[in-house]
């Protein structure tokens, strides 16, 4: 290891112990929650903060003192004074340069910890879209829980579970525009792009018996808010997520059986409506958004931009979700992404059942799917 860096690290460790001081607590609001690097980021910030505070107070005190001491007195000439001092000027060039070079090196060291994931990290896929997140667990499992609208956001917020004390590596990409994955508690972020993969890693902290961010759960847990940090349009500020760190057995149970006990097909469809972000464009109350409402959609004939009309049956629903560009409802834009490969058979059944349940022409939503045939691809 570079001895210079080692020296700097130990100086920082001595000045800023791992425990968060009252000033850091005020500045950040909450302790760093990620176990590998976030305390390092915060420690570095506080190091810069104290240097800056020292320099700022020094400069301002000097300015204020001189401005008052040498204030103008009528008829009194200013004293003679130097307007140049080579030694002083060299000093105040070299000292900041040394500080800046040091900051760069320490910043780079901590940055390396932020961007280089350990090889044993659990890899998960994260897709960002307007305006939500899809996290794919092993075996195609996705999140099945949301916070209701009004909890931390005006929209419903998906909950993403992670096992405690585990390095997680998210392979991230975007379906549409640029988004950014930011968990302030982790003190780091990374952008998501529509045409390339980026990654973000963190180590979940080890849960203590007292960690009960959500006391209703009955087991220790920690919760962190996930924000989209890159402006992505109308509901950018609704593009939130909740990261919940849970005991390993809870996580493994979730992977084995992601859906809540005894949930009906219709309820499952209703959950998917918000989990998969359908709610961003398709309302349930009859109001028109970026896309048509789902209220009384199923079982009715609708007019499409090519002049045709089409009955919204199960087959047509499936086509509209997998190949949304084929038929565009009159009065709407061709903006929906294909969900082919993202919504599996069971989820599709749940969505159709839910649509039927909110249409007065839907019939019995739990009845079989008489229209269901092989994908015809007909236009």
């Amino acid at each position: 290891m570079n001895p210079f860096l080692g020296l700097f690290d130990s100086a920082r460790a001595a000045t800023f112990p791992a425990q968060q001081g009252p000033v850091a607590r005020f500045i950040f609001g909450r302790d760093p929650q990620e176990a590998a690097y976030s305390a390092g980021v915060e420690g570095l910030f506080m190091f810069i903060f104290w240097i800056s505070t020292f320099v700022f107070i020094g400069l301002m005190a000097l300015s204020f003192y001189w401005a008052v001491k040498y204030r103008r007195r009528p008829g009194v000439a200013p004293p003679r004074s130097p307007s140049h001092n080579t030694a002083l000027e060299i000093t105040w060039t070299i000292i900041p340069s040394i500080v800046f070079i040091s900051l760069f090196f320490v910043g780079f060291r901590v940055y390396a910890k932020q961007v280089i994931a350990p090889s044993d990290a659990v890899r998960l896929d994260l897709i960002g879209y307007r305006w939500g997140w899809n996290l794919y667990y092993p075996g195609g499992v996705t999140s099945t829980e949301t916070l209701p609208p009004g909890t931390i956001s005006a929209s419903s917020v998906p909950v993403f579970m992670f096992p405690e004390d585990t390095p997680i590596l998210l392979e991230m990409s975007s379906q549409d525009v640029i988004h950014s994955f930011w968990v302030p508690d982790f003190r780091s972020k990374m952008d998501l792009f529509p045409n390339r993969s980026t990654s973000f890693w963190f180590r979940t902290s080890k849960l203590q018996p007292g960690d009960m961010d959500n006391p209703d759960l009955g087991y220790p847990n920690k919760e962190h808010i996930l924000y989209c940090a890159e402006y992505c349009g109308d509901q950018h500020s609704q593009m939130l997520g909740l990261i919940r760190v849970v005991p390993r057995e809870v996580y493994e149970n979730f992977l084995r059986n992601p859906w809540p006990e005894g949930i009906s097909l219709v309820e499952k469809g209703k959950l998917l409506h918000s989990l998969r972000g359908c709610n961003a464009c398709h309302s349930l109350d009859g109001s028109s958004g970026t896309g048509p409402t789902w209220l009384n959609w199923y079982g009715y004939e609708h007019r499409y931009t090519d002049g045709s009309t089409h009955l919204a049956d199960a087959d047509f629903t499936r086509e509209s979700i997998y190949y949304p560009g084929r038929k565009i409802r009159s009065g709407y834009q061709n903006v929906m992404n294909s969900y082919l490969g993202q919504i599996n058979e069971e989820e599709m059944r749940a969505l159709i059942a839910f649509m039927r349940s909110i249409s007065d022409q839907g019939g019995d939503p739990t009845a079989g799917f008489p229209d269901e045939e092989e994908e015809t691809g007909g236009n």
Partner: protein
Amino acid sequence: MSTIDTHNAGQHAHHEGSYLTPHGGALATIWNWATTIDHKKIGVMYLFAIMFMFFLGGVAALGVRAELWEPTRVVTQVVEGETVTSYTGQVLVNLAPIVPGVESEGGISAGMNIYNRAFSLHGIIMTFMVIVPSVPASLGNFFLPLMLGAKDVAFPRLNLMSWYIYVFGSIFAVAAVVMGGVDTGWTFYTPYSTMTDADHLRVVFVILAAFILGFSSILTGLNFIVTVHKLRAPGMGWFDMPLFVWAMYATAIIQVLATPVIGITLLLLIFERVFHVGIFDPRMGGDPVLYQHFFWFYSHPVVYVMIIPAFGIINEIIPVHARKKLFGYRAMAFATLGIAAVSFLVWGHHMFTASGELAAMIFSALTFLVAIPTAIKVFNWVATLYKGSIAFNTPMLYALSFLFMFTIGGLTGLPLATLATDLHLHDSYFVVAHFHYVMMGGTIIAFVGGIHHWWPKMFGKLYNERWAIIGCVLVFIGFNLTFFTQFILGTRGMPRRYASYPDEFQFLHQLSTIGSWILGIGFLIHLGVFVHSLVAGRKAPENPWGGLSLEWETESPPIEHNFHHEPIVKHGPYDFDTVQPPHTDPAEFPMPEPLRPGERTH
């Protein structure tokens, strides 16, 4: 001892009128101003246009702050034409008619549309129509030739043309607003900017406006470079120029070199939107990160187009009102050029969360390089106060405010230049606070200070010092309340460009909003002071502050051809310890004892 061979107007055979003297009737006067090639008139027209644009951008900012008063006061639906909040169902003042197009789109996104359009409007107006042209186009146009002892800029007709290009570009932008506004933010990041409002031309209009405004910048910059090279008064070497001129020179170089890049970028963006040529949009085979490189290759140097002129103003205000030779003149001049040069190499620091690790490392290192000359400048200003004779009038209070806020702005740049901390702070309110401390606490504060400093010279009228000081104090308090709170919001995790936010941030947001009201009142007081001065201000003397640079030699307001005789420069612009300022009374501006033989001051 005097700067010019003579400055006694009485010796002249003919008496030339001030540039403000009307020519004939009202129509003739308007025609005279509209077709003028006098740099002073063009500067004044720019000044008022920029003030108007500042007012528009400020109203948008107050709207943004008002919306953020409540965490869930997110307007999410339009019910029967009324805009209501999502939870309380409370009917807001009917916002929909303000933003045409929102009503028809309806639905859940309508309300946030309004917020997103308001902050985009604020950013676009303040960047392209206020801060970029602010100091160079108004004060620069007016004072650069005066400080050089020239009759006008090198190309007066080109100067008039750049003014009309500015007006033309602004009209395009205003047209887009009237048509419904854009929600892209001022950065127009792709692919969002090529997708949004696909059926409207508003985004194209605004981009076109920025493109047109760029030409205005280039022409002004070109004009200034040639003027500085060719039109310095006899006896004025490069290191006899006031530092405001140095600042204008460095700014002009950046404008000429960097602005074409944004021109090309914006043109490509228009091509992509209108002709669907895939450049930035991945759906057409383009790359959105390429856009970010292009955009910041211009927009980072332009950050220095915004701040270097402010340095120039502070370099004039502090020595004149402290009656003190500026500390480290040459260091200041070289620091200005150094910042201008390095500014071209740091664009990648806007993309630490988007670019590869190696690029991030290089750009972080280069960014710290800019910090060094900036730090030197601050030290020089503070050292200039030492053993001065400091007047606490409005320009000086603004200069001290600048020192306070710019230092905070500069120091908070350090955790943003540092890779590890930037990953947390990037795109948070910390960044918003940081660039407002630099752009507003730096540039706008220096600009307002500069307007007060030169107001008596420009209009020949004094302003009401007491009310101007009250305005200045309110601006100082309001500004810090508005933006200091945003640093803490950012470190605590508040992302920027959010119309709604979790409850925990509400208290700080409310403090910030209250600050914005105080700030607004402060600026309104200044507006009142300016209007009062123009209507009923006392006549200003030639040199109210005891300045030594050439603009203080001529009359207030200056005569049409600036000087009765071509000035001959015999001393530096800051030799307050050896030269009695022109038109001043030694009783009011006494000189230090002459040097004893063999004594040196430095």
